[in-house]
C-alpha cells in the first residue's frame, strides 16, 4: 500500500512492479498537499499539470516496456525514481515558472526557459515534480519566516518554524507531502531545517552537484542537495543528481560516485570522533544528548577539538554578508523597499563590507580548511549537533544558547556554518523522542566522502537511533513544555 509514509524506493518499486501507477501516486500526493499545505505553507507553486504529464509519461513508458518484453528490447527498465514525487525550493529554475528565490522582486522576472540541471536530473530519473517550495528571501535566514509568502510551519508543531532557509523543503518531506525534496545550503540551509523538522538531509561537498539553473546567494559557499525520510532515499536522490557539469564554475567532483551500492557496508574500521570545543560550547543539553546517543551507537569515544572554529564561523559570516550584498547591489540601490524587512538591512550592510575584511575571511578559509583536512588523516567521521536546540516559535527573535541570548535567525546556524565554510560533505540524521521536537546530528567527513556519511546514516537508521517518521503534529502545549 503506497501512502504518505511510503519511501521513494518503495514507490519506485511499486510503480515498476505494476502494484500502483505513477498517476495514482501523484494524484494522492496532490490530494494530500491540497488537504495539508494550507496549515503548513510549504508550497509557493504547485505544478499540477506538469506532475500529471510526467506521471502519465512514466506509466506510458512502463506499458511500452511491457509490450516490448520478449523482444530485442528486453532488459530495459524504468529509471530509478520512476513515479516518485518530489518538490524543489523555489530558487531552482522550473521551466515555465518564475524563479522567486523567496523574493517579491523576482516576481518581475520572466518564467524560466528550462529546468535547473538538478531538476532535469530528477526528471531523467523518472521523478515527478509537484511544485516549488517556500524559503527565506534570497536564502538569507535560518527560519523560513518570509514576509512576502508567510512562514513555513513545522509539521511537528505548526507554531514553530521549519528552520531555513530551505524550510519548505524540509517541512514538505516531514509532513509526507513528498518523499524527496531539493534545497540549497550556504551556511546550513539544508542541515538546519533537516534538524528542526526531523528529516534526513545531505549537503554534499562544495563543487559536487551542479548549481546551474539555481538562484545564487553566496557563490563561494553555495551548495545544493536533497532531503528525504530515509538514508536509502537520500542516497537514491543523490545518485540521481550527480552529473559532470563543465558549465558550473565551481563543479569539481573527481568522478560520479554512486552511494547506494555500498550503503549497507556498515562502519567497521571507521575512526569516528565527536567534535568538541566550539561545537559543544554552542549547544543546549538537548543537542548534546543527541550527539551522545549517536556517538554511543557508533562506538565513538574520541573527542576532537577543531581549533579556531569560532573564527571560521565569523569568516563565513563576513563572506556571506559581502557576497550576498554585492549580488543584490543593483536592487538595493533601486528598490530597497521591495526586500523582505527580515533581510533588507542585512543585505544593505553586507554590501558595504570593506574588501580587507572579505579577503582576509577568504584567506582564513584556506588556512582553516588545511587544519581540518589534517585532522582527517587519522579520523574518518566527525559528529556535531546540527542545531544548538529545537525549533523556536515563529516570530521568536532571540533564543538562549549556553546561557547567552542570541538572535534566532543567524544563531540557528552556529554549528553548521563552520562546516560549509570549508565545503565538507555532511548528512544530518534526525532523532525523534516521543513528546519532544526532533533534532539532528551532523555526520561529517573529508571532501568527496558523501558515500561514507550516507553509510553511517544508514547504519544509525538500521540501529533505530535515527528515523524520520511522517509528522503527526503534537499538541502545541506539550511540545512547548519540552522544547525549551
Amino acid at each position, binding site marked *: 500500500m503506497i501512502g504518505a509514509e511510503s519511501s521513494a524506493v518503495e514507490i519506485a518499486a511499486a510503480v515498476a512492479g505494476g502494484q500502483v501507477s505513477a498517476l495514482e501516486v501523484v494524484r494522492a500526493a496532490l490530494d494530500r498537499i491540497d488537504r495539508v499545505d494550507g496549515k503548513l505553507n510549504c508550497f509557493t507553486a504547485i505544478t499540477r499539470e506538469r506532475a500529471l504529464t510526467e506521471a502519465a509519461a512514466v506509466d506510458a513508458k512502463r506499458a511500452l516496456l511491457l509490450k516490448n518484453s520478449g523482444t530485442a528490447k528486453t532488459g530495459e527498465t524504468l529509471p530509478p525514481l520512476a513515479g516518485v514525487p518530489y518538490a524543489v525550493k523555489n530558487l531552482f529554475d522550473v521551466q515555465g515558472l518564475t524563479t522567486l528565490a523567496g523574493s517579491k522582486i523576482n516576481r518581475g522576472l520572466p518564467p524560466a526557459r528550462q529546468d535547473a540541471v538538478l531538476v532535469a536530473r530528477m526528471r531523467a530519473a523518472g521523478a515527478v515534480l509537484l511544485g516549488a517550495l517556500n524559503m527565506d528571501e534570497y536564502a538569507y535566514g535560518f527560519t523560513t519566516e518570509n514576509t512576502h509568502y508567510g512562514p513555513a510551519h513545522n509539521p511537528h508543531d505548526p507554531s514553530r518554524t521549519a528552520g531555513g532557509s530551505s524550510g519548505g523543503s524540509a517541512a514538505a518531506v516531514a509532513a509526507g507531502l513528498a518523499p524527496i525534496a531539493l534545497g540549497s545550503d550556504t551556511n546550513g540551509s539544508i542541515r538546519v531545517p533537516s534538524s528542526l523538522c526531523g528529516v534526513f538531509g545531505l549537503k554534499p*561537498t*562544495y*563543487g559536487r552537484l551542479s548549481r546551474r539553473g539555481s538562484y545564487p546567494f553566496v*557563490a*563561494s559557499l553555495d551548495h545544493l542537495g536533497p532531503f528525504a525520510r530515509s538514508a536509502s532515499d537520500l542516497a537514491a536522490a543523490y545518485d540521481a543528481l550527480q552529473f559532470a557539469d563543465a558549465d558550473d*564554475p*565551481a563543479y*569539481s*567532483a*573527481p568522478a560520479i560516485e554512486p552511494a547506494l551500492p555500498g550503503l549497507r557496508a556498515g562502519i567497521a574500521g571507521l575512526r569516528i570522533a565527536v567534535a568538541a570545543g566550539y561545537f559543544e560550547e554552542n549547544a543546549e543539553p538537548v543537542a548534546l544528548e543527541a550527539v551522545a546517543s549517536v556517538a554511543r551507537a557508533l562506538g565513538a569515544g574520541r573527542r576532537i577539538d577543531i581549533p*579556531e572554529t*569560532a*573564527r571560521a564561523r*565569523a*569568516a563565513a*559570516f*563576513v563572506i556571506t*554578508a559581502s557576497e550576498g550584498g554585492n549580488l543584490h*547591489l543593483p536592487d*538595493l*540601490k533601486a528598490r*530597497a*523597499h521591495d526586500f523582505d524587512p527580515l533581510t*533588507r*538591512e*542585512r543585505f*544593505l*550592510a*553586507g*554590501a*558595504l*563590507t*570593506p574588501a*580587507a*575584511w572579505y*579577503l*582576509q*575571511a*577568504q*584567506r*582564513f*578559509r*584556506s*588556512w582553516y*580548511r588545511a587544519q581540518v*583536512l589534517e585532522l582527517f588523516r587519522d579520523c574518518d567521521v566527525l559528529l556535531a549537533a546540527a542545531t544548538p536546540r529545537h525549533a523556536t516559535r515563529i516570530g521568536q527573535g532571540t533564543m538562549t544558547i549556553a546561557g547567552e541570548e542570541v538572535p534566532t535567525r543567524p544563531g540557528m546556524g552556529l554549528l553548521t556554518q563552520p562546516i560549509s565554510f*570549508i*565545503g565538507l560533505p555532511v548528512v544530518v540524521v534526525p532523532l525523534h523522542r516521543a513528546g519532544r521536537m526532533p533534532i539532528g546530528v551532523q555526520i561529517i567527513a*573529508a*571532501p*568527496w566522502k558523501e558515500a561514507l556519511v550516507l553509510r553511517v546514516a544508514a547504519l544509525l537508521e538500521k540501529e533505530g537511533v535515527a528515523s524520520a517518521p511522517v509528522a503527526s503534529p503534537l499538541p502545541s502545549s506539550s511540545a512547548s513544555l519540552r522544547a525549551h
Partner: protein
Amino acid sequence: MKPAQTRPHCHEIEATVDASAAILGLPIAEEHMPGVLANFERIAYMAQLVMEFPIGEEVELAPVFSHDRC
C-alpha cells in the same frame, strides 16, 4: 571568543556606513539606517575576529576545492 581589540565606536560605524554607501552610490532610507548600522556593527565584530588572526603571506584564497588538493 571575544575580539582582543576594542570594538569600533558607534561614530566609526556610522562614518564607515555613510562613506561606503556614498562611494557605492547606495542610498539608505532613514527608516532603514538603524537596522543597517546594527547589522554593520555585527559584521564589524565578526571581521575583527578574523582580522586579529595572524595569517601567513603564503595563504591564498581557494574558492574551488579540487580533488587533488584534498
